């Protein structure tokens, strides 16, 4: 039986965040990722070590701009943010707001202390009649970078949303601040989708915290407030996004990860991704060994991995080496009748391979497609056609 800590080895568990958790949902079928993430393996470091460095760097310009935008929203007891919330009718007009800084106190405050602080705050607010004022008469509370915890597949994951709003009516909204622009009411759909699923992770964590504090998680709204700069200026704009769908996706994925024990049970006992990092911080384990370890856990590479998973470079090259149609993209795979190997596709297309019973239909289409392709190329006198087509079907041209 394998354990997560053995798999990870001596390194400290790699911190998960909402982004990495959200990324899990983009390739839910991959065991390799599920195992590495559950064990808290630092995939970036791993990828570097085996010679497929991931390129997920962030430009300092983007970071600076993001921070400036956030600061602008929070200035002056979150005055700008409050205006937006009133506009969106989440907070009644004329309402005051209190900005509650939940970020770490100094360098020393431990995560558990911070966690307790957020939890205490939530408890106090929900109990009512406290220093914040009784429900209905207290200001809207904007918890700035509260720390939440959540258990995913037996591991505690710490999460830090940008802001959580607790309205005067004790309704809780997750507020996600992003620095991509909404121009004439439109933003890049991929960015909105990414923001929504990340915020959904925070919604789950907030629900967990509220439940933990002994209250009903129904107080947490399943829509989130996305705040972005509007048009080309730094003026913020807020949009409400329903994240019920994202929550369902996440729950499914977490349930799957909860069954990780079964996955681990199937792995060799001595499997580990320990990089044998010495005192000077250099990884000593031979990369071939690490690669061999990776190969023990089945992966399911798809081109979408390139945008979300640190191991994509490695997995792509393996998938290519195996000649898997998956590297060509999902729509191509579908068109090729779901056949997994490129060689099989071409064998069936050229007729050199006889189809298995469940392949006959696909094979007939592929065979015909190949014939039509070569025929057209030959007809048009393409000199390379005879060799680049599979060569055989030019015979069909006898008419």
């Amino acid at each position: 039986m394998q354990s997560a800590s053995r798999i990870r080895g001596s390194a400290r568990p790699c911190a998960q965040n909402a982004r990495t958790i959200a990324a899990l949902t983009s390739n839910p079928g991959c065991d390799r990722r599920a195992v590495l993430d559950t064990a808290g393996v630092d995939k970036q470091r791993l990828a570097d070590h085996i010679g497929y460095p991931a390129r997920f760097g962030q430009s300092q310009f983007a970071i600076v701009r993001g921070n400036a935008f956030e600061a602008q929203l929070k200035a002056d007891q979150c005055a700008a943010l409050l205006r937006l919330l009133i506009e969106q009718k989440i907070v009644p007009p004329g309402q005051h707001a209190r900005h509650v800084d939940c970020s770490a106190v100094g360098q020393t405050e431990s995560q558990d202390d911070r966690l307790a602080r957020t939890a205490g705050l939530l408890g106090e607010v929900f109990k009512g009649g406290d220093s914040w004022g009784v429900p209905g008469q207290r200001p809207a509370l904007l918890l700035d970078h509260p720390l939440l915890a959540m258990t995913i597949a037996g591991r505690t994951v710490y999460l830090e949303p940008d802001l959580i709003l607790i309205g005067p009516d004790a309704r809780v909204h997750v507020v996600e601040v992003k620095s991509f622009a909404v121009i004439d009411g439109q933003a890049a759909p991929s960015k909105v989708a990414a923001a929504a699923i990340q915020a959904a992770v925070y919604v789950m964590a907030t629900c967990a915290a509220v439940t933990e504090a002994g209250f009903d998680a129904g107080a947490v709204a399943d829509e989130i407030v996305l705040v972005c700069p509007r048009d080309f200026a730094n003026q913020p704009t807020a949009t409400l996004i329903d994240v019920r769908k994202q929550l369902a996706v996440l729950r499914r994925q977490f349930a799957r990860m909860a069954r990780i024990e079964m996955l681990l049970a199937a792995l060799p006992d001595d499997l580990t991704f320990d990089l044998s990092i010495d005192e000077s911080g250099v990884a000593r384990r031979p990369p071939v060994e690490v690669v061999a370890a990776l190969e023990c856990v089945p992966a399911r590479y798809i081109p979408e991995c390139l945008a979300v998973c640190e191991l994509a470079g490695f997995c792509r090259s393996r998938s290519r080496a195996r000649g898997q149609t998956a590297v060509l993209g999902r729509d191509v795979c579908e068109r090729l009748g779901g056949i997994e190997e490129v060689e099989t596709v071409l064998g069936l297309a050229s007729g050199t391979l006889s189809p298995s019973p469940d392949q006959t239909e696909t094979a007939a289409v592929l065979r015909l497609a190949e014939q039509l392709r070569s025929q057209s190329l030959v007809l048009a006198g393409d000199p390379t056609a005879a060799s680049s087509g599979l060569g055989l079907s030019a015979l069909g041209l006898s008419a």
Partner: protein
Amino acid sequence: MSTLVALARALAFVQGVAQPITMVRHIHCAERPMVFIPLALAGEANAPLAAMVGDDPDRPRLLVVPQPRNRDLRFAFAAELASILVPHFERFQTVTEVAAPDRTGQARWRSTDAPQVVVANPAAAGFVRLFGRSTRFRRADGPYAVDARVPVLGQWLTFFAERAEYPGSSLLVTLTDALAMHWATGQSALEDTHLPALLAWIEPPEGRDGATAAMLAEDPGIWPPAGPATDPDFDNRVLAPAIEAYAAATTPDAGTLAECQASGALRDAVASQLEPTWRLMWRAIALLRALPPGVRVADRWAADRDAYTEFAARLEGSGLPQPRRDGAVAAARRLHRLERALAAFTVQRAYDDPLIMAEYRLTGEAFVATVLEADRLRIDTSGRRRTLRPRVTVTTTDPAKPEVGSTWISPARPAQRARAVEVVVARGAETTVVLELSGGMGRALTPLPGSVPDAGERLCYTSLADQYVPPGDFPAPEETPWTHGGPPAPASLDAVEGQAAVASRRGDDLPRDDLPRDDLPRDDPAGEEWS
């Protein structure tokens, strides 16, 4: 994605080099395309950082915003870009030709050529659209005055970006799309949007296969990304220090040696990211040029020239910027036109290209047949008038099984309809069809030479028809219920939308010239800050 293209991808994968998926080129290649590579500053809403632009591969122009967060410098960039692009865009107006009259019978003119803008990838096309949006509402007077050419540039860029949505239009060419339309690589469509990797598959260097070459091309240390996003590593290690050095060297008395040096260093740094892409883009253009053009490419380019002529006239007329968002009627009209363009483009590509037609042969929407016999002079006497109705008997091994009574068209004789009057499906894979022909044979009772296929001729018949679809009928704004956006409100922006809708109702898309200038969108977007 058709099965033939999927198969071509599989082939490309095995052979290590991209495979052609067309026999001809389906886009227009201008004699002197205007190549435009914009770079944007990370994290900002389309803030220009630099651009390389020009219509001569040997003389690229480099534009740099030394401090991208400085509004004045950004507008100086926009003005400089306008001074290059706007004269180029306007140049093609002078030589015109007579075009077919419009629906109302009014004579029409159109430019004999039009400008073509070429960008590297879809994100760069997006930059064109957003940069157009951020500049077209600016004004040359008032508190936020900019160079007079800036809003004009904005309108032009908006025009190009909108036109690019029309399937088959070649006014704004996105190279990765254009290349992927003609070649299938052994990687995914997602990876094809990376220009260096895509080209590595199409033209892998000696001794390397496409996959390896593409992998190397993805390394930003070897090939800088084609933009508009820059490599974060470049931002952090090179660009940020260079911008800082420039800021430190800038003093109230401009033009000091230190400032010149700092700005020179910054330009060099940015140029190092742009030059490789510049060369790649011209290589890609050369690849496309080398393909023989499809027959109907010229027709579509004529439609592009029409659009260009119309827009140039509109600019000279009212000069009203395009609205921020289309009103309901304008949006519906536009959607309808896009659908028509897509339908036409789909059919035209198949007509022009046997390899694309093969996709329809696979699905039974087309077949290639050999003419067994032809009754050229057959006359139909059943009606009141004697009519020429030749019959040809053809045989095919394609999967298509025409039904009796179905109509087919041969791309070789598009004006002619062929109706299946008899179909015999033989034991083997062979199908014999007797087709009765009408149209495209001249007016006499004997067909013009060559208008009826001869015995032994091999030809293609398809059920795809390149038909004229009449433009839809849309209500005038004043007849549009408020639920659908009309009638126009008097406020500035809405007025523009309303007027545009009035104009399009009149069929010329030109807003009235007598609009008071006050109807121009004023302070809101014009004064819009640039972060």
